[in-house]
């Protein structure tokens, strides 16, 4: 038996073993520890949820005898607003989850013991904002995301300011100061 055929035999044997009991994973990962995190996107998404609620509330319902084209227009607009509301409420949850899970460390938690509660509230309010047309839930979601953003910047020793959003949704955005 040649060396190479012996090697192949061993290799095949080990591969068969792998199928029975898969080997553990060893990571040669970059895992992109880019260290780039920013709660801004979560805030913008929360503002979008607020805005969609406002648009839905402002949408005039056509009369019972209104022509089909008018009813279609209404339904189409409503559908679009709801779809965007869904998408952005979920985006808030996703963005916050990433920063909470990947960025925040135990020592941060000592300084912000309410962090888990804030994140919990964001998850719940994000779902509530999806389930209903509920401007108050959307405003509450935005308020919690702003608290989260302030905690995030504070862990970096960066103070924050709340400025008017200058968006159609009104309200404020939290920015790092300076």
């Amino acid at each position: 038996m040649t060396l190479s055929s012996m090697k192949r035999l061993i290799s095949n044997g080990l591969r068969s073993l792998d199928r029975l009991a898969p080997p553990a994973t060893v990571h040669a990962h970059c895992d992109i520890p880019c260290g780039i995190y920013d709660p801004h996107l979560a805030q913008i998404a929360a503002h979008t949820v607020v805005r969609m609620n406002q648009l839905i509330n402002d949408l005039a319902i056509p009369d019972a005898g209104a022509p089909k084209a008018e009813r279609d227009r209404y339904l189409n607009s409503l559908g679009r607003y709801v779809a965007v509301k869904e998408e952005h409420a979920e985006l808030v949850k996703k963005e916050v989850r990433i920063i909470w899970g990947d960025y925040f460390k135990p020592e941060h938690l000592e300084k912000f013991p309410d962090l888990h509660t804030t994140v919990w509230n964001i998850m719940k309010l994000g779902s509530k904002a999806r389930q209903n047309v509920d401007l108050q839930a959307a405003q509450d979601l935005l308020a919690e995301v702003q608290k989260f953003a302030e905690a995030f910047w504070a862990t970096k020793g960066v103070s924050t300011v709340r400025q008017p959003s200058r968006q159609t949704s009104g309200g404020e955005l939290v920015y790092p100061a300076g």
Partner: protein
Amino acid sequence: MAALLRRLLDLLPVIRYRVEGESMSPAYSPGDRLLINRLAYVARTPRPGDVVVLRDPEDPERLLLKRVERADGKQVIVVGDNLDASRDSRRFGPVRRGDVLGKIIARY
């Protein structure tokens, strides 16, 4: 049966691993199967150039595959071959020798 087999295999000095990620590419690529010798550093210090499996200092649940750059009796400095795509001692500093679990001896 598979669980029993796994238990028995875990007792052996040679352990199989599957590579994930690109930080050791092209020497070791995602999907490669490796054998590591867990007894390699019982009697001697890791040598520069050795490719080792170590416990991730930032996540004890994970195992990393890196190359030894320098080592003494206590500490080992590891880097990925692919410097642009590696989280290693440049970020987390030297690792304790005890966290280096073994040396790659073969690919299969």
